[in-house]
């Protein structure tokens, strides 16, 4: 049996009086990946930030290698990247890149704000993924703005990290980004969440974007129907 790298039970996060999500539960084993899908505003970014220890949950429990997220940060390697918009624009790209494992990520000395969006995204990803060792990788919309070469590099890098035992949590609002890549999919819908394993969607072959869309529509229909009844 695969030991669980991440175990989440009845997680809820609230901003003031606004409930972002509740009742989120899932397990990810070492060397497994979870795709988090959902419409804009469903709480994908908040969920990932909570796993990375940046947000304290309002209710529920998160264990990463048996530790709380904050303790896990101190004792295991956690990589987290929330997109190019989170990079400080005034910092030189080459200097930011040196915060990875110390290797040269880029020799570009321009300020980050002067780079194209895809180049910024790649810089951020290469910097966080360069850190060693990594037990958990949490990436928010990682394929966003990447060109085909960079997207292929990212997919290959994530597969390598997963093969070495890292657990992956990846979010996207575009189904084709995650189709076929993850062992399980968490569908975040307004005020509800549903975990579906890849083998339940497609037992014999990799999950396709069309299959994910079908599941998504069914779940969303269920939620709509419940709302209509209530």
């Amino acid at each position: 049996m695969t030991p669980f790298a991440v175990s989440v039970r009845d997680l809820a996060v609230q901003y003031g009086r606004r409930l972002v999500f509740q009742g989120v539960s899932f397990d990810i084993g070492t060397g497994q990946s979870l795709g988090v899908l959902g419409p804009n505003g469903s709480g994908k970014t908040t969920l990932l930030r909570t796993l990375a220890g940046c947000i304290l949950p309002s209710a529920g429990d998160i264990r990463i290698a048996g530790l709380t997220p904050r303790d896990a940060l101190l004792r295991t390697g956690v990589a987290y990247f929330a997109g190019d918009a989170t990079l400080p624009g005034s910092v030189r790209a080459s200097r930011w890149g040196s915060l990875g494992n110390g290797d040269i990520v880029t020799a570009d000395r321009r300020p980050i704000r002067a780079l194209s969006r895809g180049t910024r995204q790649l810089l951020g990803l290469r910097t966080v993924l360069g850190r060693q060792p990594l037990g958990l990788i949490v990436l928010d919309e990682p394929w966003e703005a990447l060109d085909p070469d960079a997207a292929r590099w990212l997919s290959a890098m994530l597969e390598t990290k997963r093969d070495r035992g890292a657990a992956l949590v990846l979010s996207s609002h575009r189904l084709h980004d995650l189709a076929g890549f993850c062992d399980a999919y968490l569908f975040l819908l307004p005020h509800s969440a549903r975990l579906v394993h890849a083998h339940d969607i497609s037992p014999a072959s990799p999950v396709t974007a069309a299959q994910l869309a079908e599941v998504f529509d069914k779940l969303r229909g269920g939620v709509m129907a419940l709302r209509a009844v209530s």
Partner: protein
Amino acid sequence: MARSFSPLRFFRIVPTQPALISWTFAVVVVVGAAAILREPSRSAGAMVPILLLQLFGASSGLEVPARRGHYDLLLTSGHRRTWMALVHWASSIAPGAASWLVLAAVEAAMDYHNVRLLSFGTIAAMGLVSTLPWAITVRLPRFSGGIGWLLALAISTSVLSFDVAANPSIDGLAEWLWSAWGFLVYPAGLVGRELSLHQGLIAAPGLAIAAGAMVAACRWVSRASLPLEAAQ
């Protein structure tokens, strides 16, 4: 563990304050050093702009850049948050502290036996402007502490004469409280003064407030939830 860099290195690469502040400090140091070289007895006057700038330099603000995600790499790097907060504070006050020490060195070079810029009053004033604004601004936008201090000074001038700040007194409770308030809103009044332990009571309330605010700010940083601005 994946600690590939220290908070010190992070804040060297991601400065806590704009480069303009550091350049302004450099200009003020050059002008101040020239004034001290010309007339060493005016060292206290050369220190006033440093204190004023330090109020704004220390008001660097931590929550706003953290909620923009600029510190995500550090927050997930495996270092304790209290340590990150202290390094953020240290890097915010470093240019001002360095400027002060340069002026003190210039003064010492001119008159080794009477270095007013290393007097108790100067150290207390520098300590106050290097801590309280940082602590107040931790959850606020950059420069809020400095702007708030200017407001407090402007309001205080309507009820408090500059004499109280410039000539503090502890002859009675009311005088002590006024003098303590005077130090809090106009710490430059104590620059260059060698205070006795008894006179040091003037600075004690302000420094105690600053220490309490620092502890509260560090505790907040160590426990805070930092959602992304755009995710709320």
